[in-house]
């Protein structure tokens, strides 16, 4: 589904991604973990070209990610993305947030977009918030609305860039529940997160990054119980103690 080969990315002098290779199969849930600054968010943002990589190739569904223009927009329409800071459109209601892209990008009628939006908002458990402006919602509700907005495009894959990092602790669960449900439904997902519990529970594979490289990758139980590299062992010792 997603195939990354030899990806390199610099921010000025800083080499943030170092020859990264990654494959994500259809229906697979890959959770990317690692310390801050390890390049995991950048990797995620490169997958739909919100960041342009400096070298290497990315194929989505067998097609190289286009550099720009309408083809790039078409690819992005098929790859949903959920951001750390939600990024709901502040001037539109929650319902309009979910309806906008299907109407403008897919040419879906207003009536049908509205129906789908109501269904999706119900699915993520915030049906009664449909008419409100995003700022009136709690963080957890906003993030669930953002997931509904991405799902409204019926994406082939979903990217999650630290979806719970900006949430109060008691709201993390409701968002992770929605994501776990998606994973169970067979959605192809790349999830950048610090939620080790989610990684263990929902991931098919864990990718551990450090210093812009993929250091270790493996099935979650094996990875968490017996990491092969010192760096991963060190990282897990720090995050799993509390």
């Amino acid at each position, binding site marked *: 589904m997603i195939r990354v080969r030899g990806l390199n990315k610099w921010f000025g002098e800083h080499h943030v991604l170092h020859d990264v290779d990654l494959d994500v199969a259809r229906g697979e849930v890959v959770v990317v973990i690692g310390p801050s600054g390890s390049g995991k968010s950048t990797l995620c943002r490169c997958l739909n070209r919100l960041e342009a990589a400096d070298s290497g190739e990315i194929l989505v569904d067998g097609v190289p990610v286009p550099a720009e223009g309408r083809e790039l927009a078409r690819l992005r329409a098929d*790859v949903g993305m959920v*951001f750390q800071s939600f990024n709901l459109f502040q001037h539109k209601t929650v319902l309009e947030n979910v309806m906008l892209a299907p109407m403008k990008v897919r040419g879906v009628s207003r009536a049908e977009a509205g129906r789908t939006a109501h269904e999706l908002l119900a699915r993520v458990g915030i049906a009664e918030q449909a008419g409100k402006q995003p700022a009136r919602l709690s963080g957890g509700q906003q993030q669930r609305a953002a997931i509904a907005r991405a799902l409204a495009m019926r994406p082939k894959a979903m990217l999650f860039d630290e979806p719970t990092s900006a949430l109060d602790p008691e709201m993390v669960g409701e968002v992770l529940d929605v994501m776990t449900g998606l994973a169970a439904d067979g959605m192809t997902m790349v999830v950048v997160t610090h939620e080790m519990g989610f990684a263990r529970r929902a991931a098919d594979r864990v990718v551990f990054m450090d210093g812009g490289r993929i250091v270790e990758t493996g099935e979650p139980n094996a990875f968490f119980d017996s990491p092969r590299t010192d760096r991963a062992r060190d990282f897990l010792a720090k995050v799993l103690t509390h």
Partner: protein
Amino acid sequence: MSALFDHLPEFWQGLVVTLQMTMTSFAGAAVVGLVIVAMRVGPVPVLRRVATVYVETLQNLPLLVLLVLAVFGLPEIGLKAGLTTTAIVVIALYEGAYIAEALRSGVNAISAGQGEAARALGLTFGQSLRHVVLPQALRTVVQPIGNIFIALTMNTSLAAAVGVVELTAAANRVNLLEAQPIPIFVGAGLAYAAIAAGAGFVTGRLERRLAVAR
């Protein structure tokens, strides 16, 4: 005071021309501003450059110079239009640069995540600008744009210098007959003040109506 009231028809004529110039050139400036800001924040380097040069050029030249150049220069190269029309176009192009800058500050005030989210959903750059970024940017710059409207209203009086008989020129003509500058120009000034006050009232209302919870 009679100097003012004896010549009400002339004043009225001048005021009508001033209002016409204000409205049409503001509408033109709004269009110019939108186009320029779209080019300036867009992804095409050459359009960004063109828009930057446009803004820098028009902001750095006095409007009066532009008016004189257009009124006397354009006929030389075979472009002939009515005085008022020429003045309206020049003012629209000039104020368009200011509107573009006000809009750009509004665009910069919107978090980058808004545009990213729009593009991540598959909206093209133009669509994300039109449906997501600009509607929010506009809300943040209602007041500066109101100020530009007021400045534009005052700037239409410069057209008097190139022969357009708008409010200031009308007042000047009446003064040549009556030689009572104080009541005549105070009267004209009050008319400008009324337009500006109206604009202030409208922008205040708009700002409250369009407020977005953040």
